[in-house]
Structure formats: structure tokens, C-alpha cells
């Protein structure tokens, strides 16, 4: 028997979402974690990618380089742009055909739209926004199950969920929770084209307009440096200072939920439970108290510098380094010193 660990390869306009590569790495690890069972049963485990779109074959090769043993490719005009029903139909059909054991989807807006629909179609279990995934025995299961760990209650509780009696065990994972594996330029794998019939009746919605956001270049999730502002800024003007520092450091501007709710900055910059998850190399939190709903979105950053007037702000509990002070004094000083440093390096 072949135990299939599936990853949905998300793409938009012919470009893959990096979360797919991150999940291929996870799937490979999960497949490795059942090695002892494979030895006993004589089964094999494979990591396979599911790619849906139009004219996207090149991405299948990329998926193989990131670790897919095989890629199932659904390539046809109805799939050019993401629409819920055609994509759900495609995935559901393939799952029914190949019976994967585990199915991972990136928790992007597309992924969350798609995964819930597919899981319901298949009447199987889905755990969203997982921060940890392992294979393990649970509740005297015969085989190891997918142990899907995720925050709940706004991040106040960490819960591990299992789906014991249904397949595939589905999980969505936010971009940047896991690191992508190193691609292997010599990797070999198979690309299998699959035909999925989409009748006109199945297309129950159409995209009539695309509107590019001015901030669509805000690639928060993959930025190496993020400078974030919170309510401590006192008003929208504070973000001018944040942006100045971010520009100086070659980084991107982030925000807590409070500032977005107050209308000081657009939602694209929101980091946290109802925003984006980030793990930059450097995260500077200015005027952010560090409520748990924000923490869950950035606590895995490599280096966290917190600037806050309140010495008891919870952000200092997770900051690598904290400065207790007025951000309107500290940040200008930081900008000045960074500029001076860059001058001397020239």
C-alpha cells in the first residue's frame, strides 16, 4: 500500500506561493516519521503535490525540486484563476481517486477558502492554522495519526487535534510557520496530468474585475526585516516614523490589530491572530503592548526588539531585547545611528 502525504501547490498567475515549498518540507518529515510502520508493514510513503491552474507545468518541476516524488497536474482553462467550485471539484476528485492519508494546504486566503470546502465535500476533518505537525499514536490508534497543533481562544490555549476515523487528515498551515527545504536541482519525479471535467453549470461564479492594491507589494510574510507599530504610536502619523525606519533597514511596515481597527493603516499590514504570521530575521515592535493575539503572529521571529514606554508590557516577555522608553525618542535615534553606520561602511 502507498501512504500518500499530499501538499496543495498553490499558484497565482503562474507563480507558486512559497508556502507550498514549506509544506513539501513538512510532508517529507511526516513521511519520515512513519518509517518504523513502513518497515513493519512493507508499505511505502510518498510525498506528492497537487497543482491546479492553466499553463503551470513549470511549477510542477519546481515542486519536484522541493521534494515532491510526484505531482498531479490539473491544467486547463477553467482553472486559470482560482474559483472555489472548480478547484474544490478538482481536489475532491483526485482525493477520491488516490486516497491520500494526509493533505496539507497553505493557510493563505485561497487556501482557507479551498481547504474548508474540500474537507466538507469529503466529509473529513480539517485543522486550521497549525503551528506544529507530527505523526504520532493517539487514542490507541492502529497507525500513527497526524497530530495537528494550533492556537485557540485567541492564542491563549494550544490544542492538538486528531482526525482518527476519516481520511485524508487535512491541515492548513500559515505561510512562514515552517522553513522551506533547500531545493535539490537534481531531484527527479513524475508529473501526472489529470483530467477533471468542469461543465458550465459547475462554474457558479466569475471574476469580473481585478483590483490591484497599492500595497499589494507588501510582502509581509517573507520580509527579513519588519518594523511594526502599535497603539502606542498615538495616531496614524506615527507610521511615517515607522516607515522611515523600515526604509532605512530595507524592511517592511507591520501593524498591530488596534491600529488597523482605528483606521491608522491598511489591513495588509496587520500581524497577528486575525492578520498575518511572520518570522523575519528582525522584528521591531514599537508601541505594541504584546497582547497574545499579536504575539501568535510574530513570536517566532529570529530577533525581536521591543520599544515601549510601559516596563510591564507583555511584549518584553518575548523580546530578545527591549528598550523601555518613548518611541518618539528612540526611533529617531535608531534611524540616525543606522544612517551613520551605513555612512561609515561605505
Amino acid at each position, binding site marked *: 500500500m502507498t501512504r500518500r502525504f499530499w501538499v496543495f501547490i498553490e499558484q497565482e498567475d503562474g507563480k507558486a506561493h512559497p508556502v507550498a515549498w514549506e509544506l513539501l518540507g513538512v510532508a517529507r518529515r511526516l513521511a519520515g516519521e512513519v518509517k518504523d510502520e513502513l518497515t513493519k508493514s512493507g508499505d511505502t510513503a510518498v510525498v506528492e503535490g497537487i497543482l491546479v491552474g492553466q499553463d503551470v507545468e513549470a511549477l510542477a518541476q519546481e515542486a519536484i525540486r522541493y521534494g515532491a516524488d510526484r505531482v498531479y497536474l490539473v491544467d486547463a482553462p477553467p482553472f486559470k484563476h482560482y474559483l472555489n467550485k472548480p478547484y474544490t471539484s478538482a481536489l475532491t476528485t483526485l482525493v477520491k481517486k488516490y486516497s491520500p492519508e494526509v493533505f496539507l494546504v497553505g493557510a493563505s486566503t485561497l487556501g*482557507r477558502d479551498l481547504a*474548508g470546502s474540500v474537507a466538507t465535500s469529503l466529509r473529513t476533518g480539517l485543522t486550521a492554522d497549525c503551528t506544529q505537525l507530527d505523526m504520532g499514536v493517539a487514542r490507541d490508534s492502529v497507525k500513527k495519526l497526524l497530530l495537528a497543533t494550533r492556537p485557540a481562544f485567541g492564542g491563549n490555549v494550544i490544542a492538538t487535534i486528531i482526525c482518527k476515523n476519516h481520511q485524508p487528515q487535512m491541515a492548513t498551515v500559515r505561510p512562514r510557520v515552517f522553513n522551506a527545504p533547500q531545493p535539490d536541482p537534481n531531484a527527479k519525479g513524475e508529473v501526472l496530468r489529470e483530467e477533471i471535467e468542469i461543465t458550465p453549470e459547475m462554474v457558479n461564479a466569475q471574476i469580473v474585475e481585478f483590483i490591484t492594491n497599492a500595497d499589494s507589494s507588501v510582502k509581509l510574510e517573507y520580509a527579513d526585516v519588519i518594523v511594526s507599530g502599535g497603539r502606542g504610536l498615538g495616531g496614524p502619523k506615527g507610521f511615517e516614523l515607522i516607515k522611515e525606519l523600515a526604509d532605512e533597514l530595507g524592511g517592511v511596515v507591520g501593524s498591530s490589530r488596534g491600529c488597523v481597527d482605528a483606521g491608522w493603516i491598511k489591513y495588509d499590514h496587520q500581524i497577528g491572530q486575525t492578520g498575518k504570521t511572520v518570522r523575519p530575521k528582525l522584528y521591531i515592535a514599537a508601541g505594541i503592548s504584546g497582547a497574545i493575539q499579536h504575539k501568535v503572529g510574530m513570536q517566532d521571529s529570529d530577533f525581536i526588539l521591543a520599544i515601549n514606554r510601559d516596563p510591564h508590557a507583555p511584549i518584553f516577555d518575548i523580546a530578545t531585547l527591549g528598550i523601555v522608553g518613548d518611541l518618539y525618542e528612540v526611533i529617531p535615534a535608531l534611524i540616525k*545611528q543606522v544612517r551613520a553606520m551605513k555612512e561609515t561602511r561605505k
Partner: protein
Amino acid sequence: MFHALVGIKQVPDTTSIRIDPETNNLIREGVPTILNPYDAHAVAAAVEWKRKLGGKVTIITMGPPAAVSALRECVEMGADRGILVSDRRFSGADTLATSYVLAEAIRHIHSLEPIQMIFFGKQAIDGDTAQVGPGVAVRLDLPLVTYAVNIREVNMQDGFALVERRTESRNEVVKAGFPLLLTCEKDIAQIPYASLPDLVKSLRYEPEMWTADTPVTYDAAQIGLKGSPTMVFKTGTPEKHSGGEVIKSAEVGVETAVKMALDKILSIESLASVLGAQK
């Protein structure tokens, strides 16, 4: 006549939940329950369009008896009818079982009074899965528009709506025929400050109570714990971090504090290269 249905959830206000520092358990007492914020905006949007087109808004929720207060809040915002689907046998439901209960209830309502648009909030702030809306859409085979930020048009004549949704990279305007289902961002409508007649109406309003038997008869195998493929294996509290060094700028002066911070950051290879790499 325009008939909108909104699925809501009463949730604990997770922004005011705390962990007891001694026992490491969730402090559940005194945590107020609220109408899920995204659902509130969904209700506001439905009511806005009802007022424009004439019609009615029905609210439905699966929850414990206390959820009547969330239904009253919706009536306060201008909804006309509130239904609480509540039964012991629903408890332990995960999102699959929940979407089953709601879908069948909605099917029943629709059979008596056709619905054009079904609204859900984008996610509930306790579960945060964002799965129930899509689940209901699949069960009822409806066009699904998630992350809706604006309803451009509701065309009763030709039977479609134009809904603008937001993705990470861009916004899209989607056209879908009735009935359709959308999950809403907060941007979709502002919560109105209720008029006095609406508030008074909500204070006196008694929602309808539905059970697992009537008016819809549910399949026992698909509700509650039995109908839930996922279950909680274990829970814990997040790692307690103890934080790193804290420099008080009042003690050492702002310039020194900043210098100390920069020095520490640059002492780390990966960071130094990232920063040094910038022009």
C-alpha cells in the same frame, strides 16, 4: 422580496481572556461572551441591504441557550428574526458537524422563504478556523465568496450580486447568482448605533428555539461528537517566555540605549548581513 440570512456565533471575548499565572489554566470566570465581531459586521451588511431593497434578515446560530443574547444584539442592529438551534446532542461538534446542522436549518428556512444571500463572518475569534462558512456553501452547493469587503450590487431583477473580496495580492470583484454565500471582513459594513425603536424591539424579542428534532430532524450520526471527524487530543498553554534583556532609556539615555541595541543586533551574523546588504 430580499431575504438575507446571517449565521452568527456567540463567543468568549478572547481579547479579555487571561491565563492564571499560577495554575497555567484559562481563567474562564468573568470572561464576557460577545457576538463574534466579524459576524456583527456581516449582520450590519445584511441589514444595510435589507433597508435599501426592502425585505428581511433572518439570523441563525447553533449554540447554548445563552446565545439568545447574541440574537437580540442582531435584532438591535435591525435583523427581523432570530433562530437558536440548540440541543445537548449538538455538543462536541467540530466544524463539519456544525456546518451540517446549519446547512440543514438553512435548507428548511429557504424552502419556506427563499434566501438570496447568506452571510457569515470570516472566522470566529475562539476557533479561528474560518471553515464553517465554506462548509455550509459546499453542503448547499452555493457559490462561495470569502473575505468579502464590499457588496457592490444586489440585483434582485436578474438574480445576482457583485461582491468585492480581498486576497493577499489584490482585490477581486466576483459575480455570483442567488443564492450565494459570503464570509465577511469587518470592512463590509459599519456596525450601526441602533435606533431607539430597534433597541426596544430587541429588548423584548424572544428568539425561536429549534432542536435536533424539530422543526428539522437531524441525522444523529452527523451531529455533535458523533458527527465530528476531529477531536481535541490534548491542550496546553503557550510556552511562558521570560524575555531577554531590557534597557531603560531613562537610566542610560536614549542614545546609549539605541547604541546598545544596535550593537547587540549587529553582533549576530545573519542580522548584520541582512542590514549591511541594504544600500
